[in-house]
């Protein structure tokens, strides 16, 4: 009897422990927002959404339809290429045409478009039964650095990020791990061949891996020229990101923020330190071009990725993580090839994201708010990520299952991106990109200056002088804060 009682007691304790454990987990785990949580939307007016054409942006369209089916609010969309996105949308916003209810906003446009977009906090107060606190709970799975980039100087969140294109370093792991290549590199440079952590190492790697037809790579005779680095020096915004990665990594700024004693931003200044670092960045960029394939001077991301995917280049030192899927297709193209990713040298590359923002001229801000929450939700981003989407949510990317090799082609970019976000977090607040209301215009001018430096139309020193001149002009004309 005594034995039975003890046994019963043991069972009872086990059951109680299980109940406490499972129940506790259920109580502790935050319920993730999903489509089912979108409440009845009173305003049934259709909404029109801009999308960035190309890449995997089309993946989002089925989710717009799911939202329409669930809520009864018709959702239409309009895709436009990135090059024309800014010009088209800004005109509609300024003219208050109400053409778009939700617009695609690049993180660096958040301050510039502030006057034409609803802050998310305002919409949460108006339409969300859980209010601003509910919105904040929902945003807990997002990256705080990315959220800062989608916000104004004053902390108003101008949309919800849904797609990232953080720069990462993609390389041929099979080449880096090849014994002969490793040994030769160590012999020549005196250290191990591994993903470059400094710009000097990158230059060494570019030089080492640039081989002519007839030379050997991994012990095999090459049938074509192979280049160490694949870059994007054409007159597109990407060349600016490549130069900018160098500037930020050395603690420089395109223009440094000037703050008052209370820490409030009061203007910008291109300091002497900034000028020195900018000049070095321009010089270093040109030096690296010696190891890039022909065509680089007019190339952009498609060129750079194609070079890697076709086996013409061994490293893409700064490429958007959204291109991982394409870049890793080198594994299908070249027998034995293996792609891997790491942080860009210096750990401070551009960390961009698109966020969907509700237009102030929307006829249905209520539906716009809920659609944004739905697109940026955990469940949605997870589904999309598994289909090849470049999710912005940390809670999705950090799931341990995705480190399994079977997810390599979908998530091979994730760790490098998360580490980049962590590294960047403390600096985001100081970058001109996320503080100037003139940045849409500055971006274009940076592009031109970086490109003209790359084609050596100007010397690095002249490029810095040109930047200071146009920055002063554009910031004064289009910005809200002065150049000091």
């Amino acid at each position, binding site marked *: 009897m005594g034995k039975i009682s003890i046994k019963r007691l043991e069972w009872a304790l086990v059951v109680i422990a299980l109940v406490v454990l499972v129940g506790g987990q259920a109580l502790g785990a935050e319920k993730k927002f999903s489509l089912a949580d979108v409440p009845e939307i009173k305003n049934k007016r259709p909404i029109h959404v801009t999308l960035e054409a190309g890449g995997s942006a089309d993946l989002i369209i089925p989710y717009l339809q799911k939202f329409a089916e669930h809520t009864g609010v018709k959702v239409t969309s309009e895709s436009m290429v990135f090059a024309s996105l800014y010009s088209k949308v800004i005109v509609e916003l300024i003219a208050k045409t109400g053409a778009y209810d939700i617009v695609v906003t690049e993180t660096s446009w958040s301050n510039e478009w502030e006057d034409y977009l609803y802050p998310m906090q305002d919409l949460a107060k108006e339409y969300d039964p859980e209010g601003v606190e509910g919105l904040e709970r929902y945003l807990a799975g997002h990256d705080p650095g990315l959220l800062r980039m989608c916000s104004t100087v004053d902390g108003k969140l101008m949309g919800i990020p849904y797609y990232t294109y953080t720069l990462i370093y993609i390389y041929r792991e099979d080449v880096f791990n090849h014994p002969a290549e490793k040994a030769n590199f160590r012999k020549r440079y005196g250290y191990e061949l591994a993903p470059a952590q400094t710009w000097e190492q990158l230059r060494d790697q570019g030089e080492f891996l640039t081989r002519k037809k007839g030379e050997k790579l991994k012990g095999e005779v090459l049938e074509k020229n192979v280049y160490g680095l694949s870059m994007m020096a054409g*007159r597109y915004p990407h060349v600016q990101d490549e130069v900018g990665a160098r500037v930020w990594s050395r603690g420089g700024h395109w223009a440094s923020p000037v703050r008052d004693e209370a820490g409030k931003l009061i203007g910008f200044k291109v300091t002497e330190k900034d000028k020195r670092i900018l000049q070095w960045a321009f010089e270093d960029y040109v030096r690296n071009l010696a190891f890039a394939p*022909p065509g680089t001077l*007019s190339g952009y991301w498609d060129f750079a990725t194609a070079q890697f995917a076709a086996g*013409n280049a061994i490293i893409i030192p700064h490429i958007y993580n959204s291109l991982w899927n394409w870049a890793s297709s080198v594994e299908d193209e070249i027998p034995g090839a293996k792609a891997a990713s790491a942080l860009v040298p210096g750990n401070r590359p551009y960390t961009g994201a698109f966020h969907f923002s509700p237009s102030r001229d929307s006829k249905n801000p209520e539906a716009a708010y809920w659609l944004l929450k739905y697109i940026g939700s955990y469940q949605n981003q997870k589904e999309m990520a598994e289909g090849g989407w470049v999710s912005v949510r940390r809670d999705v990317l950090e799931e341990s299952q995705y480190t399994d090799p079977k997810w390599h082609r979908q998530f091979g970019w994730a760790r490098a991106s998360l580490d980049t976000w962590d590294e960047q977090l403390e600096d985001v607040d100081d970058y001109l990109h996320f503080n100037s209301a003139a940045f849409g215009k500055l971006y274009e001018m940076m592009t031109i200056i970086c490109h003209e430096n790359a084609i050596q139309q100007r010397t690095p020193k002249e490029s810095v002088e040109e930047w200071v001149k146009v920055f002063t002009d554009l910031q004064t004309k*289009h910005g809200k804060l002065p150049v000091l």
Partner: protein
Amino acid sequence: MTERAVVKSLETRKTVWQVLSADAYIKWFLIVPLLAVLSAFMFYPLFYCLYMSFHEYVLRAPPLYIGVENYRTVLHDAVFWQAVGRTFYVLVVCIAVELSLGMGIALLFNREFRGQNTIRGVCLLPLLISPLAMSLMWNYMLHVQFGIVNQVLVWLRLGAVEWISNPKIAIYSIMFISIWQWTPFSIFVLLAGLRGLPKDALEAARVDGASRWFTFRRLTLRMLMPLIIIIVLLRTMWLIRIFDPLYGTTRGGVGTEMLDWFIYRIAFVFFDVGKGSALAIFSLYVTIVLCAILYRQLIKALGTAR
């Protein structure tokens, strides 16, 4: 009123139609709709552009009158003058090549040969393709590694050329794209001219023993001069506004930025409406001056060719 006065009054009272169709009014009646359309879609934007060119206007705040400051800024801008210089270089080279090629091919086509209709039809094709689509098409065909042009060159062991990405070559690639598209225009205008030349004059020259070169230079070319000037006139207007070949290829990079791309960048990327308007007015002014000169030449040539 007497009966006679009433009859006279009825005789003199005219219907609206009679008034409008009278010689003194009919021209105005016919021209008013055109003037209305022109006013709405041409004169209004033109004068608004002129008005804006004297203002600082970057969309964020109402326009601010600044006099001729935008023009002063533009005229002191080195990038602007580089763009103007490149535009005129491209203009001169393209027109010279198009006319030379156009004349040569038109002379070849001005005879009967088998398959003439098919070949002429094929020659017309570049004109029918959208200029933007064509610039994208050439961008791919001239790609340094994957483009068909370099594939052929490599196959011939001539080596690949950086058509679009070499700063020394890119401007010529842009010219080539434009020439490829617009040479058929010269061919067919000149061919129509050749077909319409008076045969008796050419026959008389032949009977008098004039050489082919002499006949071409002193008769054919002179009689075709009005058409040549029309081609130059139209191509000048179009080439000052050259844009599409850049859009699909270099986007103004690699040292190929020209006047219209510069205007586009200022007006529709920076949204500096005032400066963009001043640039547009400058471009229009240059076009008008050039066209006025060419128009005078055309009138003279018409007089000589008669």
